[in-house]
């Protein structure tokens, strides 16, 4: 029996699979590489995060106040472009100290995919919010986006 399959395959131009995470700048900052690497590892190893990642289209800024550095995460429904610094047209911007940013990625995800704010890490994050040491600009109308980003970001 003649099998034309492999030859057809060889002749066909295979579409390159887009990378999960790409960097807008030729030299991504250490912070950009770290956040991009964290999200990439999370999404590629956890199917439940892939669903969130695939559905999210938003531009999220994260600014670390005690090192004066920021990044913009441009989620494009299954693809993320990480920019050094705060780029324009952000839907949400999170501003916090380095330790709080790390704690955000340690928030547990509870019932209905909601971040847990009643355990030790969650209470710490909530306290920072009340003390305005954690500020989230653009929250109004973007609460669902914030929860989705938190789920993608969480390593728990």
């Amino acid at each position, binding site marked *: 029996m003649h099998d034309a399959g492999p030859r057809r395959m060889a002749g066909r131009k295979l579409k390159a699979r887009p990378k999960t995470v790409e960097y807008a700048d030729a030299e991504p900052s*250490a*912070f950009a590489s770290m956040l991009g690497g*964290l999200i990439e590892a999370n999404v590629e190893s956890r199917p439940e995060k892939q669903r969130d990642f695939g559905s999210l289209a938003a531009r999220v800024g994260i600014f670390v106040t005690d090192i004066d550095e920021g990044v913009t995460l441009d989620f494009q429904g299954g693809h993320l472009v990480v920019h050094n610094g705060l780029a324009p047209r952000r839907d949400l911007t999170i501003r916090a100290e380095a*330790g709080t940013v790390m*704690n955000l*990625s340690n928030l547990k995800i509870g019932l209905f995919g909601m971040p847990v704010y009643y355990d030790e890490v969650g209470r710490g994050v909530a306290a920072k919010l009340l003390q305005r040491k954690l500020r989230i600009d653009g929250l109004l109308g973007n609460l669902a986006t914030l929860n989705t980003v938190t789920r993608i970001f969480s390593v728990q």
Partner: protein
Amino acid sequence: MAVKAFSDEWAQQFKDEVNKSSVYKSAAKGWKWTVGLVVEAEPDKNFPEAKGVVMDLFDGSARDITVGTAADAQRCDFVITAPYSRWKQVATKELDATKGMLQGKLKLKGDLPTIVRYTKASQEMTECTTRVPVEWPDEN
């Protein structure tokens, strides 16, 4: 009594500090990977040769901490690399290790979600280094 930085005596005292820490014990529950610290040479700081600190950490305790070559440390599951003077800044609390990593002053190799999950443990590990009285080679 102060011990020479990154010497065998330093490693022993560092290990003792880690094993004395109840904070580390609870924060590092479940940790089962080796960590290597590469201390890059800075001849002008009287630190002429790179060294490697190999930490065998398991479930909240330090089974062993030894000082060897940079290559020894590079074989670990997680590797943090920085020049001598950066490590000195960390050990003297001039530089916060988390901030240092976000700024690229300390270079981390290894599975990021795992290390982020153990942020508190790594912060306490840094605290433990600050409790060891050290004789720095560039202060002689």
